């Protein structure tokens, strides 16, 4: 549309105005290409990253990698305990963060009165989302592992991860709750419903798809995090899948980290194959988020 701008119809009295249509269009075109370059640069880098993982890793993909415990013989090595560890950690932290995060969001959006205290909490939650993940690891080490005496257990790991993703869950849940039209609440109050009845029957069902998407995306972040669990988990070789909240554990990123540090080249290739599996699981989780959102938003009628 902009391309069709022609000489202005209105004559300008001051005489300072020069249309310079060609020049402006050229500048516009330059910006367009700069933006395009920014987009493609990211895609090219992603492509290079994928290539550097797939070219050594593809030939090392096997069922054994999923079903076997780690081994010093690269051909026999797998990451079964790490996959189970990741599943436990992600489910545990997801459920914890969902309950705490949704509770916080409902309180802040529906109950809290606007004021200094509310602003203070809001600022802090936003800041927490930007804290480096290693800091959460140290927090988890001190609070859960030492003070609460959980040891380097699955439970301590899951709770640490829950803290890490909590701010993201709170923020996305608040957005989802805020997106519920206030006419819905007003109608409910108008019919004599209490605040809790309104929240329970109208706000939460309507906000649910957004909340769920936020939680699943936060869980995808948790599954790839290494630093906090390096501090809290500590283990580098676990041959058994976790069998309870207090058992020691291994997660996929730590297994990859362990393999890349070994002298034998085969383990680097194995690590590349493990990264492929981690990426597949991540993609599955993200598509689940999209699918759920789609499913629930079809149900919503307002």
């Amino acid at each position: 549309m902009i391309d069709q701008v022609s000489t202005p119809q209105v004559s300008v009295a001051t005489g300072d105005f020069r249309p310079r249509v060609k020049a402006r269009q050229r500048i516009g075109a330059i910006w367009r290409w700069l933006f395009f370059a920014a987009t493609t640069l990211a895609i090219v880098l992603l492509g290079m990253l994928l290539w550097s993982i797939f070219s050594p890793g593809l030939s090392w993909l096997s069922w054994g990698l999923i079903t076997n415990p780690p081994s010093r013989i690269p051909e026999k090595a797998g990451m079964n305990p790490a996959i189970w560890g990741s599943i436990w950690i992600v489910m545990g932290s997801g459920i914890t963060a969902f309950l705490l995060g949704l509770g916080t969001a409902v309180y802040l959006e529906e109950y809290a009165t606007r004021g200094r205290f509310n602003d203070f909490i809001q600022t802090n939650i936003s800041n927490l989302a930007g804290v480096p993940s290693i800091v959460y690891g140290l927090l988890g080490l001190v609070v859960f592992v030492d003070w609460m005496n959980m040891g380097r257990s699955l439970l301590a790991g899951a709770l640490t991860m829950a803290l890490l993703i909590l701010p993201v869950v709170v923020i996305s849940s608040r957005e989802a709750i805020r997106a519920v039209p206030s006419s819905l609440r007003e109608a409910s109050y108008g019919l004599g419903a209490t605040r809790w009845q309104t929240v329970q029957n109208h706000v939460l069902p309507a906000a649910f798809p957004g909340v769920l998407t936020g939680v699943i995306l936060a869980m995808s972040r948790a599954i790839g995090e290494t630093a906090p669990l390096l501090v809290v988990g500590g283990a580098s070789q676990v041959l058994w899948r976790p069998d309870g909240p207090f058992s020691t554990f291994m997660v996929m990123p730590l297994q990859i980290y362990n393999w890349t540090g070994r002298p034998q080249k085969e383990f680097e290739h194995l690590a590349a194959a493990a990264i492929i599996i981690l990426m597949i699981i991540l993609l599955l989780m993200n598509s689940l988020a999209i699918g759920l959102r789609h499913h629930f938003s079809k149900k919503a009628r307002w």
Partner: protein
Amino acid sequence: MSFLEYRLSRRSLAAITAGTVAIAPFARVLGQGAVSYEAPDNIGDLEGEFEADGSSTLGPLTEAAIEEFAAVAPNVRITNGISGTGGGFERFANGETAISNASRTIKEEEAALAAENGVSWYQFSMALDGITVVVSAENDFVEDLTVEELANIWAADGGVTTWADVRADWPAENIELYGPGTASGTFDFFNEEILGDREVRTDYTPSEDDNVLVQGVAGSPMALGYFGFSYYEENADTLKAVAVDNGDGAVTPSIETIGDGSYAPLGRTLYIYVSGNELQSRPEVAEFVKFYAASSDEIAPAVGYIALPEDAEQATYDKVLGAIDGSIAPDSDSFGAEEEATPAASPAA
């Protein structure tokens, strides 16, 4: 493929095969290893959970031993961590772990912390390693270095910036240094042996990840670095090991020269430290340590380490047996006294 000679009584074999299918690599081969280990009949029934932690150098060896032990004692769950020798000793001294992997001997303050927490300990030699000084394969002038030259390169007051500062006929190009970080036992050992009391320089590229050091040194003909022998061995096509001259002629690190002790002063012993209380009160810890000591000679080469000479392995095994039945007092009892008499612990046991 059977790399372990492991003698099993018929009853335990039945118990194990009933419990796991992982028995396949354990054929009843006998006669190659220096030490033969006889598993008790009830080994399949042993249960328990304990942790090992410590050196990243020794980590893969302990992990391999754990992996093999899991095949015979499937209900004993051992996890291994890699917190570095220092980090491992800290957890060990706090009583968190039963076994600490160490690429150097315990320090006084670490032993003091253990004593404070009532943790007695034994030190067992498990394998040999040689810290290997490397240059890139593209480097065509460095073949050997004396200990004195190495000290000048790495000391803060050595005054070396170019290769010509080391030897006059070498190029006047900047020397690029790569080495492990300060948490590493390799770093401590190298500085103690090469620098003695001199301060180490800080203007080098440190990394806790030995593969990063490999990449750095391999990438530049003017680079020099050091790390464990296994990382050199796996990258021998892009790296060149520098022979080290201790005053008796230059010796290149190899399985032979490290094994017979002629690669000095950078040849070293890798140890595990085992809690005396755990060793004597928990049969699963005792069995694992026995198993580890008896099979270290066969596991070590498979993961890039050099096995102890036969007599040293036998000595370690005998010490393990003595430690378990209590006839040998914990090394922690004699630590202070021994420190004054002989500064470096004997590599034999």
